[in-house]
């Protein structure tokens, strides 16, 4: 196979982590909302924790993006 074609396929495959990050983010926001509707008075105090979990989950997806950039621009 052509090296350039293999590179592009690899960069495309590096987008797969988006699936995991999407599922994770959905779980975080969904569970936060279901908890917040049960006890709205406690929702505000837990918002920083929710955003922190969002940031940590998002990072796994962004690692895929970083790998795609490395494949495309450094080899």
């Amino acid at each position: 196979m052509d090296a350039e074609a293999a590179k592009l396929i690899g960069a495309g495959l590096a987008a797969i982590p988006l699936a995991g990050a999407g599922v994770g983010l959905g779980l975080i926001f969904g569970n936060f909302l279901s908890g917040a509707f049960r006890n709205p008075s406690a929702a505000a105090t837990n918002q920083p924790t929710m955003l922190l979990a969002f940031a940590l989950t998002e990072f796994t997806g962004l690692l895929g993006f970083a790998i795609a950039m490395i494949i495309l621009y450094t080899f």
Partner: protein
Amino acid sequence: MIDFRAAGGPMEQFEILPIVPIRIGGIDLSFTNSALWMLIGVAAIALFFFFATRRRALVPGRTQSVAEVLHEFISDLVRDTIGTEGRKFFPYVFTLFIFILIANLFGLFPSIPGLPHELHTFTTTSHVIVTLGLAMTTITIVVAYGVWKHGWKFLKLFAPSGLPLWLMFILVPIEIISFLSRPLSLAIRLFANMLAGHIILKLFAGFVISLLGAGGVVMALSIAPFAGAVAVMLLEFLVAALQAYVFAILTCIYLSDAAHAGDH
């Protein structure tokens, strides 16, 4: 290396160009567009806080209220995560938050048409060297403060107390890897968010141009990518503020780890 300008694609906006070329002993110390936009950001922040605190009133005016809201927001964040001990870190976290926020937001300004390429709008936080610099500063402060406060007990951060010995052999390497990945995760999160957002904006803008260039009935279709660009722009404002907040809160949590390393 790929020539982004020749490509003219969505990566062109991230090219670092020298404005005042300076070379000292074979080292490139040019004043670049990245440095220019950092200076513009810092100047804007300094000017804003100068005017906000010039006439201090008990009942604040408009600029003073904005400064007070920002101050109170970070002050609460630092107190809630680190505790009263965190008072001395407030200036650092506040500076970090405002700098990242302004750098992210200024990158969203449209460029003035007709200016040379090196004076176009530039997002400094879309470069990993800038964000890694900020992240390494944070981690250096965390390690220095932890060692200064706890001495060798700072290493307790890697060994949670009350665990059986055999579990330590598994957990200590995991804790060390997790600690070492902190600066990387801080840097890559901010840089990748900014980079991805700006690439998507440029892609949508490119679709509008190419559809308008097609002529005829197809031109009417260009409204769809234009609406997409507007939606992505709104999302980018949210992301710009959210990423500054996330960087600040993670800095606070790491500082809190260092401050309370010997407690548990």
